[in-house]
Each structure stands twice: as structure tokens, then as C-alpha cells.
């Protein structure tokens, strides 16, 4: 039974379409959630107007984390952009590396070796697992189950160990670069990865018992934060947020890239589109990624070239052109729009992250009528990363 608030006492829109909120009336209170707040997803904030403990209006504010990456890239050569793109999204940086590299390769007319495609897919799935593990901890924490976050942080760290031995770094891997990837898998990698995957599965079973089969969690998340089907297209909802409503959007299936057409998997779908369903879709997605990593490690060739011969990167000029490259990250469709003008620098880079739509306009719409205590839960359930909003 979906939550139905009594709107009779709430402000009505004025002639200009804005809500008529008279703060002096004493009925309403302004409450800032963020930018420094444990209940906010990263560095953004929501300006809440509450009536009692119910939100009547929420205005999202971003800009606390603006680093101007898109502009910085216009003053860097194509190879120099490679180390900075990962910083656009801290918890899941690899999609930036992949989308940027693929965009450059497409405009420069470069085909990368098959082995590099497998390693890229492996990295992306590892990144998705990590991102989901972070999400699960956050979702549990936002409803008061702080210990779950400690469990998932541990297994996420194990995956970071795998990242470290493969890429040479834990967070900003800087491994997928235009032309291929930096290195092949280290000796015994598959075996150690299997150990990590088993640990993740075990932990996720514990999480399932403690969080997903938890009366308190269900009570607070079932029927709350429902995204109506008619919002899907108008708000550009993608990824698990859409799939939890039964909308089968998965770029890996819709427009397979890298080696996804050779992997066996189906888009994970839900029905109810509430916080609980979204978290469950993500849990199943995570386990699917675990399976995909296993598939990749079995199916990928044992050896092969990992890097295409590039022109001299110090003065690499790419012909005039534009392209949009997309991929399915843990939060939905991640895309890079790249324009080149024949010079050694990108003319324009535009990063289309799913957080921009989910965390700003969609959140403003959905936050109304929520209890203050559920705001954090809703925000986390949309799984958004503010760094990627502010490129």
C-alpha cells in the first residue's frame, strides 16, 4: 500500500506556479540537509521546507564540488585528459576512463585489440560491484543499520586489492587509456579474484538476512519513494531506478559494447519501483556482476596484445568530428559526448552522468510529502554521486 499523505494543509501553488510558502506564518520551517551531513550523498545539499516532519518542498543545490573538468580538458591534449577523467566520479571512476577512451578511439578511427576489450569489461564489472557495495552500505546506513556498511566496506576493500594488483592503484585506476589498457592480468589473478567474489557473495548473503529480510527496513522502504512509470522518459530515468519499475533499460543489452554480446545475462527487473525494490534490484545486479566477472575470466583469451599502436601522443591531432559513447554503470546510463576540431585538444567534452537527472530534478519531485527521516533513504535509493553532476 503506497503511502498517501494528507495534502490539505500544504501550501498551494500561486499564480506563478511557485508554492505559496509564508515562512512567517510559523507553519513552515526551512531545513538544510547538506552539504555537510551524513544523510546526504556526497557534496550536495537539499533545501527543505517542512511542515511538521513532512517535506512540502525540496530544492536541490549543487556546486560544492565543481572542478571544471570539462573545461580543463579543452586545454589538455588527448592523452593528458586520460588521467583526469576518472576524477569525475570518485566511487566508480572506470566508466569515465572507458567512455573517454572509446570516444577518442572512435573519432581517431582506432580499433583496440580483443584482449583489451575483455580487460576493459572486467574492470567495468569490478567497478560496478564496488559501486553497489558502497551503495548497500549507504542504503542500510540511511535507515539506521550502520553495521552493514562496515561489512560491505570490508569486501569492497578486498575488491580494491584486486584493482590494485591489476591496475596499480586502488581508487583512481588510470588503466583504460585510448588505444587499449595498460597491462594484462597478473599471474594468479583469476584465482585471487574467485576468493574475493566468494567473500562478496557470503557477505551479501549476510546482508540479505540482516537488511533485506528485516521488518524495520521493509517497513520504512516498501511503498516509499515510488517513481511513477510516466516519469521515466520525461526525467530521463535510467539504470536500476528504471529497471525497478520494470522498464528494461540496460545499455549492455540494448546496445552491447566491448564484449557484452558474448556474455550471458539478462537485465534485472523489479515491479514496485519503491526504495525496497530498487535496493533489491541493485543487490541482484551486484550478484549478476559477480557472475559476469567469473564469465569474463573464463571466456577471455589467455594472452594477446593489449594496446594499439597510437600516433605520437604528444602531438596527436584527431580529425573534426563528434560522438556520443554510452555504457551501463551501476547507476544507469553513463555517456561521453566528445567534439573534436582537428586540433590536438578536445573542442568540447560533455559528461552525461545518471546522477544529474536522478539527484536534481527527479529528487525535487519525489521528495515532497516525505518524512524528514526518509529523505536520506530516498536520496541514497536513487544512487547518485554528486561529483559526476559537477564535471
Amino acid at each position, binding site marked *: 500500500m503506497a503511502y498517501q499523505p494528507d495534502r490539505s494543509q500544504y501550501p498551494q501553488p500561486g499564480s506563478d506556479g511557485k508554492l505559496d510558502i509564508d515562512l512567517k506564518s510559523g507553519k513552515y520551517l526551512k531545513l538544510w540537509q547538506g552539504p555537510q551531513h551524513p544523510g546526504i550523498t556526497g557534496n550536495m545539499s537539499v533545501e527543505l521546507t517542512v511542515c511538521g516532519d513532512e517535506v512540502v518542498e525540496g530544492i536541490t543545490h549543487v556546486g560544492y564540488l565543481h572542478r571544471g573538468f570539462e573545461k580543463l580538458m579543452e586545454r589538455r591534449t588527448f592523452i593528458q585528459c*586520460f*588521467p583526469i577523467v576518472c576524477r569525475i566520479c570518485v566511487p566508480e571512476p572506470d566508466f569515465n576512463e572507458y567512455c573517454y577512451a572509446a570516444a577518442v578511439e572512435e573519432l581517431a578511427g582506432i580499433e583496440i585489440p580483443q584482449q583489451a576489450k575483455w580487460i576493459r569489461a572486467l574492470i567495468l564489472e569490478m567497478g560496478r560491484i564496488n559501486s553497489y557495495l558502497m551503495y548497500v552500505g549507504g542504503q542500510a546506513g540511511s535507515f539506521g543499520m550502520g553495521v552493514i556498511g562496515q561489512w560491505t566496506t570490508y569486501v569492497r576493500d578486498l575488491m580494491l*586489492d584486486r584493482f*590494485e594488483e591489476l591496475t*596499480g592503484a586502488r581508487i583512481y585506476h588510470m588503466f583504460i587509456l585510448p588505444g587499449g589498457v595498460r597491462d*594484462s592480468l597478473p599471474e594468479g589473478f583469476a584465482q585471487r579474484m574467485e576468493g574475493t567474489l566468494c567473500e562478496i557473495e557470503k557477505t551479501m548473503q549476510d546482508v540479505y538476512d540482516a537488511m533485506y529480510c528485516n521488518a524495520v527496513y521493509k517497513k520504512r522502504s516498501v511503498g516509499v519513494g515510488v517513481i511513477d512509470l510516466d516519469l521515466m522518459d520525461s526525467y530521463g530515468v535510467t539504470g536500476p531506478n528504471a529497471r525497478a519499475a520494470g522498464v528494461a533499460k540496460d545499455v549492455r543489452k540494448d546496445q552491447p559494447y566491448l564484449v557484452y554480446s558474448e556474455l550471458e545475462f539478462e537485465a534485472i527487473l523489479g515491479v514496485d519501483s519503491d526504495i525496497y525494490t530498487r535496493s533489491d534490484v541493485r543487490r541482484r545486479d551486484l550478484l549478476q556482476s559477480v557472475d559476469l566477472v567469473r564469465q569474463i575470466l573464463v571466456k577471455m583469451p589467455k594472452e594477446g596484445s593489449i594496446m594499439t*599502436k597510437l600516433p*605520437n*601522443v604528444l602531438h596527436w591531432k584527431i580529425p573534426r568530428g563528434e560522438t556520443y559513447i554510452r555504457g551501463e554503470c551501476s547507476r544507469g546510463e553513463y555517456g561521453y559526448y566528445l567534439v573534436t576540431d582537428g586540433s590536438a585538444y578536445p573542442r568540447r567534452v560533455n559528461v552525461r552522468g545518471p546522477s544529474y537527472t536522478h539527484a536534481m530534478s527527479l529528487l525535487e519531485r519525489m521528495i515532497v510529502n516525505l518524512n524528514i527521516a526518509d529523505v536520506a533513504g530516498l536520496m541514497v535509493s536513487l544512487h547518485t554521486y554528486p561529483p559526476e553532476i559537477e564535471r
Partner: protein
Amino acid sequence: MSIKDLFSPFTAWKYVLKDPVTIPDPLNDRPGSARYRGFHKNDNETCIGCGTCETICQNGAIDMLPVNEAETKEGDSGLRPRIDYGRCCWCALCVDVCMTGSLTMSNEYKWVESDPDAFRFTPGIDKKFWDNTELGYQRPDDHRLMAPERIAMGEMEAEDRINSFTEIVDGYSIEQAKLEADRCVSCGICIATCPTHMSIPDYIEAVRDGDYERGLKLLYETNPFSNVCGRVCTRKCEDSCASRHEGEPIAIRWLKRHIIDQVPFEKYREIIGESEPSTGKKIAIIGAGPAGLTTAFDLVRKGHDVTVYEAKAAAGGMTRYGIPEYRLPYDALDKDIELIVSLGVKIVYNTRIGADISMQKLQDDFDAVLLAIGLQEGRQTRIPQSEHEKVYRAVDLLDKITAGENFDLPHCAVVIGGGNVAMDIARSLARLQKQQYGQVDVIVTAMEEQQHFMADPDEIKESLEEGIVIRDQCGPQGCEIDQSGKLIGLKTWKVLSIFDKDHRFSPQYDDSDEVIHACDTVIEAIGQFSDTSLLGNKLTEQLEWDRGRIKIAYDGQTSVDWLWSAGDCVSGPDVVHAVADGHRVANSIHSYLTV
């Protein structure tokens, strides 16, 4: 919701019984992985200070700075990268792009320091505790950002080229040149090495951009013998090229030639620009070789009146009378000379100073005189019986071949010497033999082992392909003459060593290993010297000398204030050194006349 949902959460309690997963002592128990991108290491001996790491660093974290531990020398700028860890993002592009493989990373990632400036350091110079760490990021074998191989230059097959004096190499096509130019990292170490300091990275960039007129302008700023140097330069630049450390050097000489080949000669004058107004000063130059004509080129552009006296019938000096046509076609050389003449330089041919005009007259008629007479006389071995009429000097024969004079073409020749001149005469004779006798019979003997020959390795390779026989470690002991007085061979002993422990010339032979190289002609190609008899006794006495050569100051001025000397006769033999000399002397004469 089910009844299970009430009890299931209590399963979390099992974690109470689990051991903690945290690492008790992470500072010691948690080393970075084998390919971890940790703190930088730099092998100071391998690093050449090319600065490519600085160029690629997108954070501006790297500065190239002079350090006491590295000296500036050929192929090493003497600079070393200093890294600012306040800016570095450990992307390792610097390691990937490093041209020598000297820059790597350790797997160390913990470094505590109270002084914030300490985090700006020069790896390899400032000693760090991770310097000897074995693990850490190194560029994987399959991951090269730079193409190691040069674009192959097309050339005639041996069986075709031996039939004529046609130029051997094809020259790059535009596509090939762009690909080759693309390999350059623009570090500029070559500029410092080039005797005349050509703007090599800039003209290579012009090739990449397809802007050949800009390229030509850059060439002529430093080298009016670009046609010549584009074909036969000794290319010191390529010996210091950063690309040679982990691959082949950029084909700088061929790229220079490519620019030359792309611009129509009619445009040269316009691109090079007009000369300055006349100064009314008159300068005489003796010798129309690269040094003399470079000086003439510079001085005439500065508005001086320049007259060049040349003993032979054509200009170019050794580049015309020494270097065979298959290496340097005359039309290429003619372009360089024609351009210089078109600027207003007067060349008086067939006029030998000392015989036709005296030095005294030059001194009287001109404000300054340059002696650029080159090394025209061939040295002799003075081995027994080498005064035989069938023993020639290589330079004399090369001169005859160029001038088209007749001489008795040997059926079987033995060349003494392992330098480029030896190869030039051997290959020229081989061509003539092929044309006249239908077969090649030339033997090159030299004292050195073949891998230590002074000649360019390409010359040796091509000579062998053309059917020339090379016999190394052969010390000439005398010419063999039969009873009728006919030269029948050259006697050599095996060379055990050439220099003594103080590096003085003191050859040791194994006289039991004697070989008679049968031949009808012996050609000596063991070096050249200058004939300075043109100076006359008075001037010779007036001048200061340094071991047989006229003593000059750095700028080429002799001890007599109106006389300068330049080129092979003071610094040779080498074209590009002569060009560099020419510029230096021109500057000196210009300041002498105008200040």
C-alpha cells in the same frame, strides 16, 4: 513481510564471534602491489634529461632542472626531472613516455615529513628510502606510447645502383615523412648537438603540419647547405636523438631532405627574404666550399660585398669533388650554390690564390679575407714502394671522376683506409668497373675491425652489397712490384692493436699473418691535409700555428687581424661543421667591420 523478517536481522550477531578484518599494523604489514604506482625512481645514469616527462605531465608537476650530479654533454641535457608531489596524480604517463626507461615507480606509498618542501624532489638525485625497491610500476613491454622503428627509406637495389651514379635513396613520400616526423618528441637535444644548431624539432613540426615553406625558412636560418646536408650530413643529431635509446633515432637528415624536395627552387629567394642595405665593405673568401660559401651567404645578407675565389671550375669544394654523385647529386648541390650566388655573391672560378692573385693583393683590395681552403691533399702511407705511379690518393681520383678527366681505370684496386672517403672511392670505382669491364673487383683494407670502421655503417653495408670486398685488421706493409716494374699487389700484416695504452697511434702486427692482396692499383684513403703554400713565406711566418694548422680564436680569426680561417682546414673534415664555422666567422667578420 513475514515472521522471518523479525528474526532474520539477529543473524548479524554472528559477527560478534568473528575476528576483526583490519590490518593491525598497516604501516608495515601492507606493502603496495607489484605494479603499484608509488613514489618515483629515476636512474640518473640512463636519464638524458630530454624532458618528455615534463611535456606530458598534465598537472605541471615536473620541472626539468640542472643538477650537480649530471653534466651537460652530447645527448644529455644535464637536466633532471624534479617532481612536485603537491601536484602529481601518479598517473604514470611520465613513466610510459620516458624515452630511456630511466623513470619508474616504486610500490612505496608512505612518506612522512615535517617539511612540506621536501615533497618537491628530484628522483635519483635526492636519495630516498625507496630508491632500491624492486617492486612498483614499470612500463609493460606491450605498452609503448612511442613508435620505436623509423620509417624505412626506399633505395635502389644493389644490382641496379652499381650500374650508374644515380642517387641511391628515394627520399620520403609525404605520407612517410609525416609518419616519421610524428615520432619526434621535440625534446631538442639534437639542437644542442648539431654544430650549426638547426631548429630540428621546429622543422620536423613543419613536416607534420605539411607547411614546407615554414620548414625551408627554418632550414635556411641556420644552414644554407640544406640540400647538401639533407643528403650527406654526418648527422650528429641522430646520434643524440632521444628516440635512439629504446628504438631507432628519428631520420632527421631525410626529413630535412624531404622539406627541400617539396619546395620549388623558384620560391627559395622569396622565402629566405631580402638582404640588408649595402655597407660598402668588401670581403674576399678563398675557397668556394661549404665554409666559404656559408660565410659569403651570411655576409652578403648583412649588406657586405663578397667575392669568392675558387681554384677549380665549379663551386662546392669537397662536396662536389669528394662526395660521389650517387650520394649527392650535382643538381642538389647546384641549388644551394645557385641560391647563394643569386643573393649577390661573386664567385671567381679557376683562380688560384698564391698563383694567380697574391695574398698581398687580397689584403690591399679587401677589408677582410677568409681562408676556407679545405683539406684537398691526400695523405700518403709512405710504405715501401708506395711512390709507384699506380698508387693514388683517393681524393685525387674522386676529383678526376667529378671533373670527368680520363684516368687508367684499374681492373683490380685495393683501397687502404676504413673511412667514408675509402668507401666513396671504392664504390665509385666499382661503378666504373661495372660499366667498363662488366664486373667489380675492389678490395678495401683497413687496420680497424670492421665494426670500428670510421665509415658510416650504411656505407659499409651498401659497399658489401655492391660486391666490394672488405678485409679488416690489415696493416699495409708495402706495395708488391714485379720485375717489369708493374704493381701486382699490396702486402699487409694482421693488426693486433692500433693504439698503445696511452691511446697513441702505435700499431702492433702479427707478421706471420701476411697477406698479399693482388691488384693493379693501390689507393690511399687515410686522411687529408691542407696545402697552405698559397700564404707565401711572409704571411706564413707572421701567422701563429698549432700543430700544422693555422691557429685561430674561437670565432675563426687568425693572429693576423684581417685574416680568418674556417672549415675543414681548421676543423674538418665535415660539411656541417664547416657550415657552423661559416656562421661563426661571418659574425666575427661582421662585427669587426661594423663596430
